[in-house]
């Protein structure tokens, strides 16, 4: 795979009047990477994409593509191609004309265009559909036509703005694999915008988690999931149980927090916050539902929580137990379905155990909205 062209954002600020859409973003995207911006709607991720594609000028800072400052260079002169959220296929053009629009602009002949269109249609597994209108295709087919149209322009960087959000679940999962395959085949940089952490985690080499114009964390999917920097990153990516408390004692990379409801608990301080969290700080401890196990009754300690089961549900691959701590806070526990028999605990008190390395401690902060 060729190295590809990288994209760098340096101290990027974007303001709309008084509103700050992007606040001091610094991102290095390596050439040939599949890079995702993950965040809830309105967090500024689309704004970043528009700044990269050239529809928006940064208020401050720089957008570099392949090391070149892109200020003052219009979207039609940048080596990027954008796949719009609503795809923006030209409704009056046939599929093959849509795909080869970038060639028409350069003055290619109709026969050249048809030839290229046929190649690309084969690549996206829609052979012989070139003479249809976009309105005659299904959602997934249109999706692929939009990708082919963008690839036909032979961009160095492909930008995708939530392109799968309009598809149904099955198709979305299928297109994830397909997008990843296409990216690996063509070997160019993909920048992908999504609010779906599943998409980001499955496809990306690296992910930037965004909240209200700020990038909280940039890392690969595993790190984001297992070692979040902030309370927001921890609560937005995947499901998580939160325990609030004050830090009582720091012990190397671990710390003990005093919670109101569950007593003292021990957790690992997340990598980025090691050395920063001090005794007396407000902190949040996150434990994933699947990190809990049910301990024998009567055991207690700094990695045990006692809770009353409110209800249970069987999801197929996991068995979910919803519990309530003394204070009324809900904890979700997911036990993998390995063929064992599940007792019905509803109404009973159970003791939950976690391993310290699976509990992450971050400074107290804003949580993602449910």
């Amino acid at each position, binding site marked *: 795979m060729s190295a590809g062209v990288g994209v760098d954002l340096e101290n990027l600020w974007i303001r709309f009047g008084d509103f700050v859409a992007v606040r001091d973003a610094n991102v290095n995207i390596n050439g040939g990477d599949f890079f995702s911006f993950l965040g809830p709607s309105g967090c500024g991720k689309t704004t970043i994409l528009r700044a990269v*594609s*050239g*529809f928006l000028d940064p208020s401050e800072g720089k957008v570099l593509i392949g090391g070149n400052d892109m200020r003052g260079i*219009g*979207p*039609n002169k940048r080596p*990027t*191609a*954008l796949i*719009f959220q*609503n795809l*923006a296929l*030209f*409704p*009056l053009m046939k599929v093959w004309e849509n795909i080869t*629009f*970038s060639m*028409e*602009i*350069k003055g290619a002949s109709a026969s050249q265009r048809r030839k290229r269109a046929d190649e690309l249609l084969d690549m996206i597994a829609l052979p*012989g*559909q070139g*003479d*249809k*209108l976009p309105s*005659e295709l299904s959602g997934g087919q249109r999706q692929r036509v939009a990708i082919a*149209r*963008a690839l036909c*322009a032979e961009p160095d960087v492909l930008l995708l703005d939530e392109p799968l959000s309009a598809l149904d679940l099955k198709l979305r999962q299928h297109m994830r694999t397909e997008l990843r395959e296409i990216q690996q085949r063509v070997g160019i940089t993909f920048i992908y915008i999504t609010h779906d952490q599943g998409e980001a985690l499955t496809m990306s080499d690296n992910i930037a988690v965004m909240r209200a114009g700020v990038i909280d964390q940039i890392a690969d999917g595993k790190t984001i999931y297992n070692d979040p920097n902030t309370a927001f990153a921890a609560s937005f990516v995947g499901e998580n149980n939160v325990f609030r408390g004050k830090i009582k004692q720091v012990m190397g990379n671990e710390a003990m927090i005093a919670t109101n409801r569950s007593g003292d608990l021990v957790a690992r301080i997340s990598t980025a916050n090691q050395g920063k969290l001090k005794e007396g700080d407000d902190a949040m401890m996150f434990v994933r539902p699947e990190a809990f196990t049910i301990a024998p009754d009567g055991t207690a300690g700094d990695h045990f929580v006692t809770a009353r089961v409110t209800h249970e549900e069987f999801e197929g691959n996991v068995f979910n137990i919803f519990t309530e701590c003394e204070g009324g806070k809900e904890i979700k526990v997911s036990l993998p379905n390995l063929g064992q028999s599940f007792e019905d605990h509803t109404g009973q008190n159970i003791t939950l155990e976690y391993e310290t390395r699976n509990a992450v401690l971050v400074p107290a902060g804003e949580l993602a909205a449910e």
Partner: protein
Amino acid sequence: MNNSFLRISIWVYLVIFFLYLLGPLVIMSVTAFNSSAFPRMTPWECLTFQWFGELFQDQRILNGIKNSLIIGAGTVVLSVAMGLAGALMLTQIWPKLRATYYTIIIAPILIPGVVLGISTLVFWDRINRMLGLGADSVLSNGIFLTVIGQSTFIASYCMLVLVARLQRYDVALTEAALDLGATHAQAFRKILLPFMRPAIASAAVLAFLASFENYNTTTFTFGEYPTLTIELAQKVRYGITPSISALAFIIVALTVFFALLNEAKLKRQELVAAARKQATVEELAGKIKLPSFFAGNMAAVLLVVFAVATITVVGTATAYNPGQCIANVKEQKRLEAEQRIQELRKQREEQRKKREAEEAEQGGDQQSAPKPSNNSGFGNVFAPNTLGGDTEEESSGPETPPSNNGGFGGAFDPNSLQTDQ
């Protein structure tokens, strides 16, 4: 019971409504084929095509049509261009200014055409003088002034039509084109213009029709280039002939033709689209090339019927000679007139006899003796006069024998009366 009453009322209402709407047009069209010199449907005289012939020999009407077409074309170009620019501006302008801008742009529609006409004339006259140009410059040319004057408000109509379409336009399409390397001009030409094409076509038709029928504004600006409406208005002042009905009929027929053509085209596109949706890829090549043109396309059928009817009518018109019929009608009218003269004469005769009898009864009055003979002489002579309304001198011969009455027939013919006027 109640339901059927409602249904009947709706039908009655519809019939009345369409009579009100189309009745005048139908009657006007029919009068174009009546040989009567005044445009009327009853009494029906003869089927004739002479009014069409007269229409096409009337230089003023022809010249008016020519001017109207030139001005219409100019107005279409100017109005659609200005309307499109205004519509683009309106959709892209800062939202706070939008309402104000909209009001300003729409204002010309609300201003009376007369005011627009006068102001156009005055404004361009000032400009013309400021530039030191003479009365024969382009700026004071009737065609230029009329196009400019009409466009001031027709452009607003066009803008309304175009804005409606433009609001459905997804700006992302332009952005996608730019993103794929197109310049702004290319994006406009290849993406936005094709999208706007149907609206531009409707705006152009609207602009042309508005220009063609405009009178208020044009009446101040036409200068030496009177349009058709101006010519018609001037003609009506001196009385109208059925050749104007003939013109109206041609316009109605053209309108119906183009409406049907448009409908048939739309319907055909619909059918093709439906066929494409059902067809698989392999079928596309063979099946779509020959879509059965008439299947389920009522408008197309009507169109063909219309075309056949036109050919028939034109064919008949060239072959048909109403001369005999017109002669018959003339003869019939003459006979009718004669009959009425006879009747009148009879009445007079009876009155005279009555009076004579009365006088005879009164007896030996000497002075009244010659009177009866005089009365009888004048009675015959004045009868045709009262009928025809001619002056006394024309039929002064007091002793004209009754058999000569036939000679006056021409004078009583309604046709000759009309031409006298």
